[in-house]
């Protein structure tokens, strides 16, 4: 349908069921100091524990989740190394054991432009050990090609989305702190206690649902809003929209937060822009003024996880809005909403959730969308599912 999937991370399909993982360096590289290797590999694991609740503990002996070996040539797994250059290392996905093997014929180096940087290759291989496949985003750590020593290493947003799609966001604040990369994604605040809201459970129709720039998820309904936790609505809600977003009315039609960190709200023929919970200039403005080509009285809006573009939905139609192109809405839109196979017309709300998936809501039901097949995901239980049960903790 012309909605081409942008480049991004890939999940192999398996992950660890536990989050506290152990590892052992069963065979060290022949040309590096063991204590330095210990420290470098711990740093490589911390790339992933910085963004999730995963923990990694090194053990010297006994059973572990991830075994690490530096080997040359044929080393017993039928996938021989090829000497300096070429293949640097490989690792096994969780379903195949999670182990990581490094070619000991490489000139492994630490904090140096010479040789092959151990930290970066190890962090990549541990991504496989956790369930990440290769990404086609060139700047991602999980891209297959070695990129050379980077003293200012930062995990790419694509990698963060991939690992959090597998293991969720980080909820515990670090005790030890440290780790090679300074998270560019704001840490989630500590887990809010959850509570069930009887009124919302009794009538789970919502006006809109969106993520704020700091990753919190909010539901709007009438004059009120709720903040969602990992398994329900946060205690102490509902609260008044006008109290939290001064100047914003109730009964909002649609909302989304764009990659500029601003949140846009739509109602009738008007829209508002907020920076966090502070109005970002003189609003409301006319939708026809700021979003030329988009109609009034919208049903829903989202930034699609497949290509990062903004999609608007109304009745049986949808529009794609790309601020980077002129005009932002090309002549071929609106298109029939039935292109989003399995999604009904006249939806209430739509959201790209923090796990990277796209969700559509209507009445008391919701659907999860599969960006690759461009259709509603198949899963057990099947979609649509109950919004009250799965999102509101009822």
């Amino acid at each position, binding site marked *: 349908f012309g909605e081409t999937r942008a*480049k991004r991370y890939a999940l192999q399909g398996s992950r660890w069921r536990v989050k506290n993982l152990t590892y052992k360096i069963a065979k060290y590289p022949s040309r590096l100091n063991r204590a330095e290797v210990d420290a470098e590999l711990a740093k490589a694991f911390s790339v992933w524990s910085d963004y999730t609740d995963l923990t990694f503990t090194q053990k010297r002996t006994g059973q572990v989740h991830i075994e690490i070996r530096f080997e040359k040539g044929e080393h017993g797994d039928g996938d021989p190394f090829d000497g300096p250059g070429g293949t640097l290392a490989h690792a096994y996905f969780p379903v195949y054991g999670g182990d990581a093997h490094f070619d000991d014929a490489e000139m492994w180096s630490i904090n140096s432009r010479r040789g092959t940087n151990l930290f970066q290759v190890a962090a990549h291989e541990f991504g496989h050990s956790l369930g990440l496949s290769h990404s086609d985003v060139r700047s991602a750590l999980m891209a297959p090609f070695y990129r050379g020593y980077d003293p200012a290493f930062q995990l790419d947003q694509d990698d963060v989305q991939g690992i959090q799609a597998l293991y969720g966001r980080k909820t515990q604040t670090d005790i030890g702190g440290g780790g090679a990369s300074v998270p560019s994604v704001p840490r989630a605040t500590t887990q809010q206690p959850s509570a069930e809201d009887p009124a919302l459970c009794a009538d789970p129709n919502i006006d809109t649902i969106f993520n704020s720039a700091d990753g919190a998820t909010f539901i709007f309904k009438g004059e009120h809003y709720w903040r969602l936790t990992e398994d329900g609505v946060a205690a102490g809600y509902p609260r008044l929209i006008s109290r939290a977003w001064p100047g914003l009315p109730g009964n909002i039609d649609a909302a989304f937060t764009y990659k500029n960190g601003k949140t846009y709200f739509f109602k009738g023929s008007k829209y508002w822009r907020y920076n966090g919970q502070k109005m970002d200039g003189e609003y409301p403005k006319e939708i026809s003024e700021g979003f030329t080509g988009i109609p009034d009285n919208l049903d829903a809006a989202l930034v699609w996880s497949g290509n990062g573009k903004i999609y608007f939905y109304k009745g049986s139609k949808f529009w794609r809005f790309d601020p980077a192109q002129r005009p932002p809405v090309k002549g071929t839109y609106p298109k029939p909403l039935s292109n989003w196979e399995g999604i009904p017309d006249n939806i209430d709300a739509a959201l790209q959730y923090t796990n990277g998936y796209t969700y559509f809501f209507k009445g008391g039901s919701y659907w999860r969308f599969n960006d690759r097949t461009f259709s509603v995901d198949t899963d057990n239980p099947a979609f649509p599912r109950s919004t009250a049960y799965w999102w509101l903790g009822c």
Partner: protein
Amino acid sequence: APAFGETDKAMMYLAQYGYLSPSVRNPSSGHIMDESSWKRAIMEFQSFAGLNTTGELDEETTKVMSLPRCGVRDKVG
């Protein structure tokens, strides 16, 4: 056309990383492949690597194939 060796190496590379059937990795298998499969495999690799998807084993493509990399397949069944 690249030297015979280049095509062979590329065929083994594409098989190793999931773009062609693994049986191709065994050069003695005398694997016969139709032109469209070969072209499609090259284009898939070029797309994944962010290259122009020419479907030809051009210089840019063989250069990227020679870069040091991870041994895990790009396309995981």
